[in-house]
């Protein structure tokens, strides 16, 4: 918490130096004794920890690999290719993310399902995580919500550079997502079996919620709530 420090010359007592050192030793000793004798509160939310009272230590750190602080919901983690319920990627190989990428770290090769005359899919979808600058433009550019950075992970360290190049097999993971406006759900697709199609339609969500999702915004700010308010206002004014 910032506070203003008055800049003025030391008074006589402070110029004697020893009394202030002894006081400082007292302060440090208080911390030492508390931290030495009392166990620490392990709450990863450090501001919520019990500190400064009898019986708990003053500790403010985490034993990192074992205890981790939670990331903000908007944290841009490792990419993932969002799968559909049938296990295929939502990606339609439109090259929008590769075009938007300022680091040019996305490589896509498009292919077609042999039985489906309309839909494309990525035969190859490769991201060089070493080159990625984690700007999130690919997520913003995607019209199909097919690439997300919601995994909450760092890209794992490796001994070879080759291991940092993630292909579509490694990228395709995480919970599947379907939307009611998905073309393959509305008109059906020969590549999706009929019973699977019914399940996908049943689980489809009405809205596309990524970047303007309330989870990824400041607490209290909700695009959907604001939109509902505006709609209500418009209805009332009529």
């Amino acid at each position: 918490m910032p506070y203003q420090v008055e800049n003025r010359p030391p008074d006589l007592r402070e110029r004697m130096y020893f009394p202030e050192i002894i006081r400082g030793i007292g302060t440090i000793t208080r911390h030492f004794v508390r931290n030495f004798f009392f166990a620490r509160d392990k709450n990863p939310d450090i501001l919520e920890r019990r500190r400064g009272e009898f019986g708990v230590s003053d500790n403010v750190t985490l034993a990192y690999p074992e205890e981790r602080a939670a990331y903000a919901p908007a944290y841009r983690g490792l990419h993932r290719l969002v799968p559909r319920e049938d296990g295929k990627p939502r990606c339609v190989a439109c090259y929008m993310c590769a075009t938007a990428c300022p680091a040019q770290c996305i490589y896509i090769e498009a292919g077609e399902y042999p039985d489906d005359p309309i839909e494309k899919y990525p035969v190859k979808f490769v991201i060089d995580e070493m080159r990625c600058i984690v700007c999130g433009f690919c997520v913003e550019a995607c019209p199909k919500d097919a690439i997300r950075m919601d995994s909450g992970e760092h890209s794992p360290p490796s001994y070879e550079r080759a291991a940092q190049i993630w292909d579509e097999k490694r990228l395709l993971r995480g919970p599947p997502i379907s939307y009611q406006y998905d073309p393959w759900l509305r008109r059906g697709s020969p590549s999706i079996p009929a019973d699977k199609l019914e399940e996908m339609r049943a689980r489809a969500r009405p809205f596309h919620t990524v970047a303007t999702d309330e989870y990824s915004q400041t607490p209290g700010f909700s695009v959907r709530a604001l939109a509902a308010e505006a709609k209500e206002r418009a209805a009332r004014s009529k």
Partner: protein
Amino acid sequence: MSRLIGMLILIAVVLVGLVGLSAVFYLAAGGLAFVFASLGLPPSFGAAIANVVTLMLVVMMISASLLTVAERKWSALMQNRIGANRIKVFGTSLGGIPFLLADALKMLTKERIEPAQSTRLLYELAPALAFAPVFALFAIVPIGPALPLHDIIGSASLGATKIALQVAQPDVGLIYLFAIASLSVYGTSLAGWASNNKLALLGGVRASSQMISYEVSLGLALVGSMIAFRSLKLEEMVLAQGTPVIGPIPALGILLQPVGFLVFFASAFAESKRAPFDLPEGESEIVGYFVEYSGMKFGLMFLAEFIEIVILSGIVTAVFLGGWHPLVVNTEWLRQTVSPLWFGAICAASFLVKMILMMWLQLTIRWLLPRFRFDQIQKLCWKIMLPAAIANVFITGAALLIDPSMKLLAWIGAGTLVAIAAITAAAGRAPAPAVEEHGHAHAAAGH
């Protein structure tokens, strides 16, 4: 709460362990003295050899190397951190102690780098010159009281010989301390010179000027104690501190010589070249006089600093804190209550406990204060420490001249301690002078 109980148990175990260790030391010294006597050699030689092994190699070296771990762990506790805990033995970090082995292994297996065109002989000699004098200093620290040999071993034929937990008892006493301590400046300045590196040279020059300056006040600070206890020998100073002076309060050095204590402590701190006096090794400007040293050659200089902490704790304990007198109980009562061996062991253990407390105090100050500027260091030495030490010598001499029983000196010292405590406890800063409206406007505008 389980940690509180564990820590209390740990402290109790450490105390009991120190008593047991001291008893083992006495038995080792007595045993070797007995062996020497039966071989027809002077028994005091045998005791000295046993003391070199037990006190200098076990107590001093182990506490110095444990201090390297303690510096991390204790500083973490002071700064609300956890501290070194990554090396785990069976799932516990053991307070960071395994880092000792890791550090030693790292030092020993590091690549040896030698600068081109260095003065080879001096370059190789400097770490030893920095380490050896510091190492030798511990010889005069009296850890335990002198006990008759037959009380330790139980053979009546050797009655006259006394065994003390002290390697050497030279008559020059503290003069030995000053003489050997001033030798260690050669190691640092030669290291700086022989490395053929301008930063190392700067560090060496800083080290030599700082150490030579502070030797003056270091010596003068102890002159008051020499006058008060009428001896140069540390063991006699410790004995003198057992006599009561004001009522039951014993004539502790810190009571008779509070100013001497402060000046000596600060000067010896400066001699050990550690923060806040770590000008010779500023990491951000000049790396230090050891910038060209790697591996164990650096390790020796590094270890020498920690040994100096142990030495300083030992000297301060012996001269100012009552030495091996266990201040919580009366020494004479203890001598008559328990057997001589356990009396010696408890006394030596109380010396070690005081030493540990002093080491802790030094690490606390090291983590408390930012470093001085070089002119501030010299000003502190020549303008504050030296006059204070000289005034202390004169006041001590005058007080002893008026009242040879040390009562007057003790009252002066008690008054000084009370004054220091009062100034320390006085409320922080004086209230700010009233600021007129104009000043407020400026403050609000961010001036």
